[in-house]
């Protein structure tokens, strides 16, 4: 039990606790915030493991962007806060499966690595990482950029409002989706009442 272990156990306890909160919280916003805490805890774990660069990336991308994205997601879908049960009837099933998997995996891990210890933890310097990215991993790296671009376009295509006519897409920026989520007719009626902001082209298939 070295000092590093003690630090790790503390960080790990924080992370695990936040993770449990994430999946048990009755409040949606609390759950998202707990996720942010878990991600931050993971960044801490990376630090303990001497992966400084990764910890920073984790903080910037996951805690900074993804967690906020989730908060926006919760807000835009007007999720009921605390009023409705957030757990489905599959709770017992989930508990059993997750518990079983945990018992199985932890047993395997302890059996395999139970006694492995490392004297000196060393992490790769940012210089090494940079060389690795642009020498060994340059093709996957470029592919990742393509993937992100595709995801960007895909997300826009999926999320924008469909009207069926080209050039009548001015409502994309209107965040009135879900203002009248009761019936389809309501949305339809609202659509018909809304005058399109600009007639860029008449008709035609997209």
């Amino acid at each position, binding site marked *: 039990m070295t000092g590093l272990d003690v630090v*790790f156990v503390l960080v*790990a306890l924080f*992370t695990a606790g936040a*993770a449990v909160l*994430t*999946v048990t919280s009755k409040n*949606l916003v609390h759950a998202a915030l707990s*996720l942010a805490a*878990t*991600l931050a805890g*993971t960044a801490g*774990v*990376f630090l303990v*493991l001497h*992966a400084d660069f*990764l910890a920073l990336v*984790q903080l910037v*991308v996951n805690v900074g*962007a*993804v967690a906020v994205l*989730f908060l926006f*997601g919760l807000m*835009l*879908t007007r*999720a009921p806060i605390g009023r409705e*049960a*957030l757990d*489905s*009837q*599959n709770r017992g099933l*989930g508990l059993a*499966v*997750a518990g079983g*998997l945990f018992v199985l995996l*932890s047993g395997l*891990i*302890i059996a395999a690595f139970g006694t*492995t*210890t490392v004297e000196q*933890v060393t*992490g*790769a310097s940012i210089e*090494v*990482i940079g060389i*690795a*990215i642009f020498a*060994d*991993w340059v093709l*996957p790296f470029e592919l*990742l950029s393509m*993937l992100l671009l595709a*995801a*960007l376009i*895909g*997300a826009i295509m*999926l*999320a924008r409002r469909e009207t069926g006519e080209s050039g009548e897409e001015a409502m994309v920026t209107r965040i009135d989706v879900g203002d009248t*989520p*009761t019936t389809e007719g309501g*949305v339809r009626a609202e659509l018909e009442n809304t005058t399109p902001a600009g007639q860029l082209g008449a008709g035609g298939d997209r």
Partner: protein
Amino acid sequence: MSLVGPLLLATFLFCVGIYGVIARRNAVLVLISVELMLNAVNINLVAFQNLLFPDELAVSGLMFALFIIGVAAAEVGVGLAIVFNMFRNRASVNVDDVDLMRW
């Protein structure tokens, strides 16, 4: 430093994620749980890289972790877009309402 600690933490996070995916009704919460699982994998990768193979020049473990973070960001973007679409079409984000594919 012992290797088993990070691995057990990763396992725990992964199982908590699985529980969340199975037990949560809200689609956004399901996505959050998926995010937990991806992070657990990252911890595993980093732990193996820095504790067992610190001298590897290509730093595969760290690279994989980086790529997973990137892919996870993309996944969250598309996933949330799908959830919005579902919300707009069905006025609900509950995954157990979406059972068109049943018998």
